[in-house]
Every structure is written in structure tokens, then in C-alpha cells.
């Protein structure tokens, strides 16, 4: 039930924002595959999409933080060119970013008012008026570094509201706000709407879509799959629009048996485990099982994984590996005990970008490569083994990892973490930004692990992936587990609903 409908409420000339045929790739990874979008004055367009759909990238292109590979953008009929944000700002566009980018050592007032060309006194008056209208409690003299993330978000929003923008883009503005703050924000947004300013509102919260937006568009995998007026949609229709089309069938080449839960003891257990970003997590992972962990960005899955891995402090609860208490151990110990973690951010935490394939491959298992002197022979052997087993496409072991495709890079990272022969491997978004062929190969690797009796905790925002691979699936929302699904219940609807926290037990079946 999805159509590439570009229902235009107005023709392009009177649209404030007109996006035509935008393509964008980062290296081998094509993020935007032809986006067409129009937003008219006084429209509030809610833009929904899963992680990696390309929403933030599109917004950054509009803001000239990135440049598109091809396609054009028009603001109020005028073409948007230039490679610096100032050009977009001058055309009346403003992006309130998802992650606040304030100046930590300046006051709130300075943060909001910097970069304006107007008379400072007038500006200050406008700001005070705005604050009164919003009745937000914000001390203008506090240093930005002392603000909570919610308060920082308020400041970013204020920057946007003060800017007299023609097009205001709000990227997940309410993710850290309280109920009251959200309500007052909506009042202002409605006020802007009446002034014919158009707003793009990116959110994960479907209820907000119905509360504030006039139009809605769904992005998936770099294209817009659904577009229209909010009054024409129901919640179910939106959820459907987020799912991939039924026509995209994938042959499950490997039907591996579910683990024998009756007779097995869990290899890894969490009991009431709490940390920064998650609380009271309890579940078990069995050897030879793939446990899927689903949810939207911000649900706390990565924080859970990194805390288990020893990267942050444990606030409560216990973690057990093979019966042994491993709560709070440092990373090197955790690896020695038998857990390893493939990081979510491949580029920043996974690869050694200017290193070669061999160095990356052995980065985690150096303890096995000799006492003091590097055992280069073993390094070559291990690297060659994994290159063969994982079908990693390289010219030779000396090749720099940066010149590999995303899929092959990921294979190297996965291999490097498996080289320590862990009992539990945590995979965090293992196929994000990877082409279909490599994805299949990584699935084969994961299945092989399963057959070898390794326990796999699979964190993924790709519902299909969870469905294909998982024996059981857990969903997290805002730091808590909200449902555990058995194999027969793992399907698109259930997972998507649970991830957006709208799952109700009546909704079963496809």
C-alpha cells in the first residue's frame, strides 16, 4: 500500500521548499536515491523514517552542511547553491539539529543571539517576548555547558524560532522534552503556521504527527515512500508505510535450527541491569541462539551493549557469563572472559582507518600473536583465514581498510572481534550502510556462529534483519525492555509497533 505519490498541495512556484531529484552517496554507500519533495507555506510536514532512512542527511543537504551529488533545491523559487550553511541561512532556512551544537562556554543568551545582524537591543526584546509566549523556564545567563540536554534543545529551538526563517526544520525536537515543554512548543509551531512559515518536523513519535502536522512523508532507504495530508492517514497506515514492500522477497538460504531451549542453560544473563541510558534490563542469551534487540535510536540498546562491554559505569544489577559474575569488569577483562562487541559506529569506533587489513584484523587478538615480538606469520595466517572464510574482497593484506567497500570493512571488523573466539558476540547494527550482497554474506557468517554454539546478541534497526535471523527478539523503548517476542511472533508489524511503543497484544498476525 505504498505509492510514490507526490501529492502537491500547491504548484512548485508557490512552494516554499522544492526538492528535486536529490541523490547523495558517501563513498560506496548511497544514502539518498532521488528525493522529490515540496512544502508549501503554512504547512507542517512530519517526516518519519527508520534509522538510516536518510532524513538527517537530506536536511543537512538543504542546510548546505553537505552538498548533494545531483538534484536541485529551491527556496521560495530561488535555487539553493553554495557549500556553506551561511548561504542557506541567508535564504531563510534554519535547521534545529537533533544533537544540540551550542557554544559550551557562552551563556544561553549569547548562544541564541550570536550570528544575527540586527540591532542587539531589538533582538533581546524579541527574545524576551518569545520566552514569555512560551513560558519556558530558562535562565538566560547560564553557561550552555551547565544545561541539561533538554535545556540545550530548547536553546536550539529558540535559535530557530528567532530567526524569522521561511523554512524551519526541526530534527527530533522533543526527544528530551517534558510534556509541558512539548505543549508550549506546539503552540508556537501553530502560531508560526498561521504566519505561513513552513516547517519540516522530523520525529519518531507517531502521536505527535497527528497532533501537530498537516502533512506527512515517510522515508525509507533513501526514497520517499508515502506522502500526503495527515487527515488521510491512520496510525496503522503509517506503520505500514515504514515497512519494506512485500514484493521484496528474500530467500532464506539457511534455515538453522532453533536452539534447544529446554536443555540449555543461558550463557549470558542480565539481571535488573541498569546504567546510563537504560534501566532494569533482564534477559538471557543461550548458546547457539540469535537474540535480536530492536528499537529506535535513543532506545538505549547501544548504551546497554557498551556498558556490558566495560565502557561505562554500571548503576545497578548484575551481568553473568557462564555463571561467572562479570559486572563492571574493564574491557580487556571482558574480552578475555569471552565477550566481544562489534561497535555501532563502524567508522569512529570500529576500524583503524589508515591501517591496513591485517592490522585491523588482528587489532583485538594481539595477545595471541607472540609474547613481545609480533608474530607476523600468525598474523598473516589469521588474516588469510578470515579473508577466505568471509569472502572479504581485498587485493592483499596490505591494502588500506579505507579503500574497501563498507561491506568488506564490516567483515574485517566482525572478523577482528571473532578472532578472540568469544562465547557471546554483540553485533550493533552489523549491516548498516552495506550493500545487499555483503549483507547476505554477513548473515551467513552470523548463522555459522550460531551453528558453532556461539551466542549472538543482534542489535539492529533493520526489522527485516531481526526477523530473518533472530530466534527470539526483544524490543527496547526509552531505556526499558517493553516486549520479548518468541520466534513465531517475530514479524514486521509487531516489531515496528513495539519499537514505536504502540504495540498492543491484540495486534497479532500479518
Amino acid at each position, binding site marked *: 500500500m505504498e505509492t510514490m505519490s507526490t501529492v502537491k498541495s500547491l504548484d512548485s512556484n508557490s512552494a516554499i521548499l522544492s526538492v528535486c531529484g536529490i541523490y547523495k552517496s558517501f563513498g560506496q554507500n548511497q544514502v539518498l536515491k532521488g528525493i522529490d519533495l515540496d512544502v508549501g507555506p503554512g504547512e507542517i510536514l512530519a517526516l518519519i523514517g527508520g534509522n538510516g532512512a536518510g532524513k538527517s542527511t537530506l536536511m543537512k543537504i538543504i542546510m548546505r552542511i553537505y552538498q548533494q551529488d545531483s538534484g536541485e533545491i529551491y527556496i521560495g523559487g530561488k535555487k539553493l547553491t553554495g557549500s556553506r550553511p551561511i548561504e542557506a541561512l541567508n535564504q531563510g532556512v534554519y535547521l534545529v539539529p537533533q544533537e544540540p551544537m551550542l557554544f559550551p562556554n557562552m551563556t544561553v543568551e549569547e548562544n541564541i543571539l550570536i550570528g544575527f545582524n540586527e540591532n542587539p537591543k531589538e533582538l533581546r526584546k524579541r527574545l524576551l517576548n518569545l520566552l514569555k509566549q512560551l513560558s519556558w523556564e530558562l535562565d538566560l545567563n547560564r553557561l550552555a555547558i551547565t544545561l541539561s540536554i533538554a535545556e540545550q534543545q530548547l536553546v536550539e529551538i529558540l535559535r530557530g524560532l528567532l530567526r524569522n526563517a521561511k523554512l524551519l526544520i526541526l530534527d527530533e525536537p522533543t526527544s528530551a522534552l517534558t510534556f509541558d515543554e512539548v505543549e508550549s512548543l506546539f503552540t508556537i509551531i501553530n502560531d508560526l503556521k498561521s504566519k505561513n512559515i513552513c516547517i519540516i518536523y522530523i520525529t519518531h513519535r507517531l502521536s505527535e504527527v497527528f497532533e501537530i502536522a498537516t502533512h506527512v512523508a515517510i522515508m525509507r532507504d533513501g526514497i520517499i515512500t508515502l506522502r500526503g495530508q495527515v487527515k488521510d492517514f491512520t496510525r496503522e497506515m503509517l506503520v505500514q508505510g515504514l515497512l519494506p514492500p512485500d514484493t521484496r522477497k528474500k530467500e532464506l538460504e539457511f534455515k538453522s535450527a532453533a536452539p534447544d531451549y529446554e536443555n540449555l542453560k543461558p550463557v549470558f544473563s542480565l539481571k535488573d541491569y541498569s546504567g546510563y541510558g537504560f534501566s532494569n534490563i533482564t534477559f538471557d542469551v543461550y548458546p547457539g541462539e540469535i537474540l535480536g534487540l530492536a528499537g529506535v535510536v535513543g532506545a538505549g540498546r547501544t548504551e546497554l551493549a557498551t556498558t556490558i562491554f566495560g565502557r561505562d559505569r554500571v548503576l545497578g544489577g548484575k551481568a553473568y557469563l557462564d555463571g561467572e559474575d562479570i559486572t563492571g569488569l574493564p574491557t*580487556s577483562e571482558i574480552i*578475555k572472559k569471552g565477550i566481544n562487541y562489534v561497535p555501532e559506529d563502524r567508522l569512529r569506533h*570500529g576500524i583503524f582507518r589508515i*591501517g591496513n587489513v591485517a*592490522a585491523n584484523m588482528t587489532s583485538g587478538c594481539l595477545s595471541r600473536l607472540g609474547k613481545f*615480538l609480533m608474530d607476523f606469520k600468525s598474523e598473516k595466517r589469521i588474516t588469510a583465514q578470515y579473508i577466505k572464510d568471509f569472502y572479504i574482497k581485498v587485493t592483499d593484506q596490505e591494502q588500506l581498510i579505507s579503500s574497501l567497500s563498507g561491506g568488506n570493512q564490516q567483515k574485517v571488523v566482525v572478523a577482528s572481534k571473532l578472532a578472540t573466539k568469544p562465547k557471546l558476540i554483540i553485533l550493533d547494527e552489523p549491516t548498516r550502510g552495506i550493500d545487499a550482497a555483503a549483507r547476505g554474506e554477513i548473515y551467513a557468517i552470523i548463522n555459522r556462529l550460531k551453528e558453532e554454539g556461539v551466542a549472538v546478541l543482534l542489535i539492529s534497526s533493520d526489522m527485516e534483519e531481526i526477523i530473518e535471523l533472530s530466534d527470539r527478539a526483544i524490543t527496547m523503548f526509552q531505556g526499558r525492555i517493553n516486549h520479548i517476542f518468541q520466534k513465531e511472533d517475530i514479524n514486521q508489524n509487531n516489531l515496528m509497533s513495539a519499537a514505536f511503543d504502540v504495540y498492543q497484544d491484540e495486534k497479532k498476525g500479518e
Partner: protein
Amino acid sequence: MMRAVKAAGSKLKLKWEYLLVLLLIVEIIIFGNLNPNFLKPRVLFGSVNDFISICIISVFSCFVFITGGIDLQAGSIVGLTSIIIGVLWKDFGFNIWAACLLAMLIGSLCGALSGFFIAYTGVQPMVVTLGGSFLFSGLAIAVSNLSNTPAYLGINGFPEAFTWFTKKRLFKVLPVQFIIFLILAAIAYIILHRTKYGRKVFLCGINQRSAEYSGINTKLIVMSTYIFSGMSASIAGIVMTSYLGTSKADFGSDLTMPIITAIVLGGTSTLGGKGSVTGTALAALVIGVLRFGLSMSGLSNQYMDIPVGIMLVVVVAASSISKNMKIKAFIRKHLNLPFKQSARQV
């Protein structure tokens, strides 16, 4: 086409060292022409004596740069080492070798101090080593005040056993100092390029976060690089004291710039993760021979900062330009160079 350039780029790593060797040969030829004495093996190898400190320190200090740090205090550790040896031996009656050992220990501790702060408190390497350079040169002066000999004279009269070996030449040609340098460079090479520790140093420098996710104790590794740097500065101090036969607190005070130049010229990136002992050693030789050759051609010492400085700026500018996409686009547009656009559309 960009792919081919990039592939060639990884081979370029070796090429950079060939370029340095070529540069060295070119220098020798040019200076040899200007002053035939230059080519006499005795003279040529003897030149090492003048810049041996730069060579010794830079091959170990490059460890620090590879982790993305910087060390501004090595020069002052040289002087501190020297004066400690002198004072311990002359005024406190220590055995000369014991004095050397103790001085080396202290030099390593100096490195450890800064390294500790950098690794465990996240302070910026530049400021802490800057403070260290003040502190250690100040301590050197304080130590020299402990001595009965006035500071400007320097402590002399070291035992033959201590001073003879740096003046000796193997086969009447190769100074022992050169051999010392080769041995130390070899040791540095083995440590950095052949041990697990060295591999960890590189990994920390390429991406400290990823290294932590691989279970590497990055803090310890970073701190250890400063210890090596301090230790090498001490060794340089010992060698200098032995060669010059005198012990002064201000030895090494002007070494910081040449050391950094040698390291950067040798192909070590200031951002970390890249570098080699061979490159650094060759670059140190290139700079040293340049200075020696210029002085033999009659150029006085102070002028020599210009060519060395220019070399540094040009190398670093070229490196920055080659990494900067916007500048490459600019050059492409305005100079019509045949750089093909990498395939973007699908």
C-alpha cells in the same frame, strides 16, 4: 583514476623514504661540489657528532607523535641529564656510570610525569610538555647551583673511561657516535615496528576509541611513549656530555625545533597513526647534513634555520593540501588539471 592514485599512495609510504635518501645523496653531491673536503669520509661521518642528539631523540620521540601527541620538553631533559651527571660525579663522588644510570632514570621519570598527566587527565600534550620544558630546565639550573663549580664554566675533567668512547672512530673513519645512533635507531625500529607494543602504539594513534574497543590499555601506551622520549633525551645528554667532555645545564635548549622538523619531515603525521623510525632517522640525517654542509660552505649557524624551516612548512603544506578535498576542487577548477571526478552517480 583517483583509485589508482590512492593505491599508489600506499606504496608512496616506501617512496617517501626513498625520497629522503635521494635528498641525502643530492645534498652530499651539492655540498661536495662546494667544498671537496666535505666528501672525505672522515669529515662526512664526523658531521654526525654535531647533530647526534637530534637523531637519537627524534627516533624515539616519534612514538609520541604517532599517538597524536607532541613533546616540547625533550630538549630540557638533555640539559638536566648532563648537569646531574656532572654534579653527581664531581660534587657527590658518584661513580660515573652510576651517575649516568641515575640521570637516565630521572630523565625517564620526567617523561613519565608529563605522560601520566596527558594519558590520565586528558590534558593537552603541548601545554604540559611546555610546562615540563620550563620545569626541567629550571631544575637543571637548580642542580647546577648545588655544585661548587659556577654554572657558566660547566663541569669538566671527566674520567677517560667516560669520554674516550665518543671520540673514538672505528677504522679511523666511523665515529662511535654514529654507531651508537645506528644501534639506537635499530632498537627503536624493533620496538616500534616489530613488537606487539609498537603495534599498539600505532593503533592508539590511528584511533584511540577503536583501540579501547579492542581491549588495548591506551592510557598506559600513551604514557609509555613519553617515557621513551624522556629516556632518549637522557641518552642524548649522556652522549653529549661524554663527547664535549663537559657538563652544562643548558645543553639541548635549542633542540626542540630540529627534533620536531625531523619527525615531521620523516613522514610522521601530527594527527597520529602514521610514522616510521626509518623515515625519522633519514630525515634527521637530511637535516643534520644540510646544516653541516651549509656551515662548511661558509653559512653561519643562524642562517640555517631558514632552509630547514622552509622545508618543514612546504612538507606540511603539501600534506595538508593533499588531504583537503575543497582545495583539490579549487585547483582542479582553476588550473584545469586532469583530475577526474570519482564516480558518484549510480
